[in-house]
């Protein structure tokens, strides 16, 4: 057997090894996917049908997904599934926080309505005149509503609900970025993190160049 033939045999052997390894990985990946869908999917579907409006109270589903996705990481499989599960968990959490925020943000409207109606009734009774035209009535409604909305915005409850909504929104966006970065990496494209790293280096380099330019200029002025 020539050296060339030996090399070809060795190549074909290593191709076989790779093929076997790939097959094993694919099998284990599909077993895990099946196990996951058998365990989680029915649970999720059941919860969705129970609480279609966004999983309402408790948020156990979000916590369950977090527990599952935060489990030990495997080197070669299931990474993208884990990332997608985390996006789903963050989306549920965000819906929950949005519902809480909407509840707090809706409070002043009820107060404004009551105040407005009381005012209209008292003014009608006092003047004995028909209610104002729509323009005046709207101006009063707008003034009262604005007062109530502004007052509500300054309450601890509102600020806390808004902060939690922001946190949940950022968590969702951040996890979406992880999926997007994984997809970019899959196709050999630079990710957001790569871009940020390049711009960081560029910014620092520019600062160094400009500092040196200033030093040179100042030295020239001193020497002149």
């Amino acid at each position, binding site marked *: 057997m020539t050296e060339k033939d030996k090399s070809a045999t060795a190549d074909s052997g290593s191709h076989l090894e790779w093929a076997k390894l790939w097959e094993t990985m694919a099998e284990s990946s599909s077993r895990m996917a099946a196990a996951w869908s058998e365990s989680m999917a029915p649970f999720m579907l059941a919860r969705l049908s129970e609480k279609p409006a966004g999983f309402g109270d408790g948020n156990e589903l979000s916590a369950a997904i977090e527990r599952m996705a935060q489990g030990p990481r495997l080197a070669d499989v299931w990474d993208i599934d884990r990332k997608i599960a985390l996006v789903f968990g963050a989306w549920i959490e965000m819906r929950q926080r949005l519902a809480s925020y909407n509840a707090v943000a809706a409070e002043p409207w009820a107060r404004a309505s009551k105040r407005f109606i009381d005012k209209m009734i008292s003014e009608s009774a006092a003047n004995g005149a028909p209610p104002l035209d729509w323009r005046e009535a709207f101006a009063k409604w707008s003034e009262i509503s604005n007062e109530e909305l502004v007052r509500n915005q300054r309450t601890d409850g509102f600020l806390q609900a808004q902060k939690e909504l922001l946190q949940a929104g950022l968590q969702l966006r951040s996890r979406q970025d992880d999926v997007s970065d994984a997809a970019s990496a899959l196709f050999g494209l630079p990710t*957001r993190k790569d871009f*940020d790293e390049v*711009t960081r280096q560029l910014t620092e380099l520019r600062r160094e160049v400009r500092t040196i330019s200033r030093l040179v200029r100042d030295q020239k002025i001193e020497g002149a």
Partner: protein
Amino acid sequence: MSDQENQAARFASEMAANAEKIFKATQFIANTKDQDVNIGTTPKHLVMRRDKVELFRYEPLAAATAKTPVLLAYGLIGRYTMADLQPDRSLVRSLLSKGLDLWLIDWGQPGRTERWLTIDDYVDDYIDAAVERIAQETGHRKITLLGICEGGVFTACYAALHPEKVKNLVVTITPIDFHADVKDEAAHHGFLNIWTRSLDPEDIDKLVDTYGVLPGEFMSSVFSMMTPMRSLTKYNVDLIDVVDDEAKFMNFLRMEKWLADRPHHPGEAAKQWLKDLYQENRLVDGSFELSGRRVDLRSISAPVLNVFALDDHIIPPDCSRALGALVGSSDYTEIPLPGGHVGLFVSSKSQGKLSQNIVDWLVARDASNGTGF
């Protein structure tokens, strides 16, 4: 006809008239092109470009009254076009028509590429490079800085760190004490201060790290929240009020164009703005650092003019007024004017007042202190 029937008839008639006006407004918008809605039109020419930042010099509109060049610096939240909305509502045009040599530093449209820029870069690099270039072009050793809002903070920091290059400092609607909102009893003032303090520093880091910037749309939504009913009515009830007057309607569209043109705030600079200043109030205690140096406002030796709006819901007046107790200059003037944060620049009522105050003050100092050659 009974009172109730009369009332119902009147209501129906008014609603029909309103529907017609809304239809008219819709048609007007459909027939107007974006290119017909012009802002920032006062003639100027480009003198220098540094990264995305551009230095412009405005064409003179009148004989010089104050010879010292004036550099206008807006903040990074919104754009300078607020000061040049339309010919009859333009601080820029008004200053030029009163004889100032006006220059503009335009930050452009920062994006994720500018993520790592800090306030240090804006003050010690971009403003400094602009000041150097103006000095080179005009022969003036010192120039006047005119800062608006966040730009006022930048120029105040520059005047503290480079007093030898600043002839006068004019700041308008500029926050200095970011916690002074607590003194303001007006319920609609200072929500931005309260909101920022309600966040954890880690929330701000996460916001910037996630987007790479402080997104312009995000700040727009915070500003909309500050005037809740106005934000809800501006595209319906408010339109009814202006649709019969084409000039007013175009003014409305120009304001909309300015509002829509809200660039992203560079990321690291946003962290300094929100954490170091809004949360930790470091300008007041002198612990704010730029380029490794503490910004001590007592180092400001140039004459200072501080103009603020008495009904400013974004920068409560007390936040601006605080500068008086902190500057080192013995020549300090404060001018509180009626109006709001934006209204001070764009309302028909305030036109002329702001520019006249600034020009009178500058002309007096130009005459008394020499020209700074």
